[in-house]
């Protein structure tokens, strides 16, 4: 089923579907997608348009692949929240091509999934601003593999990546590459990743940078640690039993990220 969407609407995919979303220039749209099977989603935003897209990926079977190809026209605003839940062996690929003066925010939550692969690629042009907020909650032997690529190809582009997660007896691999091309001067980029490691999880984070223009301002910081004893003790000292204290702490991590994302699904 292929359709064009304009205005408030929702759509539920069938097997092997391709969904096409076209938002004309100078238009605002709010669209909700519920994806239960593999398929592809193509999004095209006209110049100066605005799209708030919410995707709920709740695949029924295992081994489902979804590929998003998004092209945002000049001056457009694109907010995409992708919620990946309860899936087994899922692959989600998101490809964002952002034109000049675009403002894009991509929020991704991956929870209760057994083995998820995430591939996010963003290409930024002149004065483009791109934010990526990623929350991962793999647990009990599952794994999440995220590959994040941000290429600054135009001047005065901005990318802000914020990853947080609780890895509980699971495995988490985050590979990020931020590249600033030679002609992309005045690029600003920050990458932040905070992961809590519980129950002997396996964590690998590679925040790679390739900066080929000297007028850049790039920062990154990564921290991987378990829940600190003194934080737990402090909470316990107020009467909360230890395991509840741990839950409180974990909730705090999740809540901070959800607030950042704007609570798109009331999770």
């Amino acid at each position, binding site marked *: 089923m292929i359709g064009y969407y304009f205005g408030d609407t929702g759509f539920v995919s069938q097997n092997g579907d391709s969904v096409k979303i076209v938002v004309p220039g100078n238009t605002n749209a709010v669209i909700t997608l519920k994806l239960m099977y593999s398929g592809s989603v193509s999004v095209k935003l006209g110049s100066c348009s605005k799209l708030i897209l919410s995707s709920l990926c709740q695949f029924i079977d295992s081994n489902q692949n979804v590929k998003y190809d998004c092209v945002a026209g000049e001056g457009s605003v694109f907010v995409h929240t992708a919620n990946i839940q309860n899936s087994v062996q899922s692959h989600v690929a998101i490809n964002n091509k952002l034109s000049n003066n675009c403002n894009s925010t991509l929020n991704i939550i991956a929870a209760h999934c057994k083995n998820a692969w995430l591939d996010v690629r963003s290409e930024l042009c002149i004065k483009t601003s791109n934010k990526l907020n990623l929350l991962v909650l793999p647990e009990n032997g599952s794994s999440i593999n995220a590959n994040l690529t941000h290429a600054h190809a135009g001047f005065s582009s901005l990318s802000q990546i914020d990853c947080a997660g609780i890895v509980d007896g699971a495995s988490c691999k985050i590979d990020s590459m931020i590249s600033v091309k*030679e002609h992309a001067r005045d690029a600003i980029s920050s990458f932040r990743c905070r992961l809590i*490691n*519980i*129950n*002997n*999880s*396996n*964590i*690998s*984070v*590679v*925040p*790679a*940078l*390739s*900066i*080929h223009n*000297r*007028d*850049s*301002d*790039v*920062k*990154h*910081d*990564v*921290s*991987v*640690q*378990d829940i600190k*004893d003194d934080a737990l003790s402090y909470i316990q000292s107020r009467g909360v039993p230890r395991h509840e204290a741990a839950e409180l702490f974990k909730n705090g991590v999740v809540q901070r990220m959800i607030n950042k994302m704007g609570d798109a699904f009331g999770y």
Partner: protein
Amino acid sequence: MLDKSVAEEISERKKEPEWMLKLRLNALRRFNEMKMPEWPVPNLAEIRFDEINYYTPQSVKSSSWEKVPEYMRAIYEKMGIPAAERELLVGGSIAQYQSESIYEKIMKDWERKGVIFMSLDRALSEHPKLVRKYFSNAVKIDDNKFSALHYAVWSGGSFLYVPKGVKVGVPMQIYFYMKSKNEGQFEHTLIIADEGSSVHYIEGCSAPLYDKSSLHSAVVEVFAHNNSHVRYTTIQNWSRNVYNMNTKRALVHDNALVEWVGASLGSKVSMLYPCSVLLGRGAKSSSFSITLAPKGTVKEGGAKMIHLASNTKSIILSKSISLEGGHSVYRGLVKIGKGATNSSCNVKCDSVLIGDDAKTDTYPYSDIQESDHVQFSHEAKTGRISEHVLSYMRSRGIRESDAITMYINGFIKPVLEQIPLEYAIELNRFIQIELEDVDNVEN
């Protein structure tokens, strides 16, 4: 030409035991089998292995400075070796000229305490059991293609053994000089710090400028036994046509500490990732480095910290400066294995870009497999010196070039503080000269 005969000739000339010849031939075989790595940024295909001069024996071997030929003495005078000795600033010196050492001296006091410091060639014949026990145990022959080449044609280098409980209060130093074009220098350094001992080892390198490239592929193995402390400082200032690919590894036992301090200033291409394997409980290691990438160079640097036991701690601090047309690369690996509870690793890698066409890449790998009281952090800052910072300094009357110099001095200070004062001053001067060469970056 690089074939069996080169390795055989070296072994024969040095009158080496059978096991060493076998090791060389094995290494050569592995070198020919192994593929050139594809991941490095610099173009390694430019290295012509068949054109390198692998071994240039020296007929001068002396423990008396006066007996060393004048022209050789002049080179090392410039580097300050004899002066340092005269003023008892060092515990021992070795000067290596091309493939072999031409001067070695250890101060009597330390010799009496049982410290052994001599060229590795000599140690192989005078302390064969000790050398055989440790040689190639930290860095395996086929760790990488360049270490394989090294083991096939190694010559020169030093052997340092510090007995139990001996704390050597002054540094041991070694200086390398590559004389001719197409020369290869493959020294092997073996440092053994027995239980409770401590020592500081400094190496400095230099070579004049030639057209053809030279290759420096050294291997450093440090064995830090329980409760020992080894600090290894390298000040590298090879000329702009040297390929500098070294493999340095330390095996750190219970409660021992190994510190890597490095300043990589010269060479055309450098690939240096000192590695510490924290084998024992409470083992600690740090790596502090400054990398300067002037025009036309690709300088890779970084560190590898592998935590295999509990209560281990490591720090990596890397400061790189890419000048106009230079490319610096940080490549690091932090691995915290299962069972390494209560361990921490903190990495800070900052990179500043000065001048047009300056580039920098960062590839920090981390692999954490233990959660119990493990803390890992990595932070990095990359980019030009902020416009606001420069304007602020200039608004107080400071000229732009002086402002850049002041900033760079502050930028490298945390690493510079780890380097002995005399070397730090020289280093600072050198960096200053390099910065002066940069054209005015603004207006």
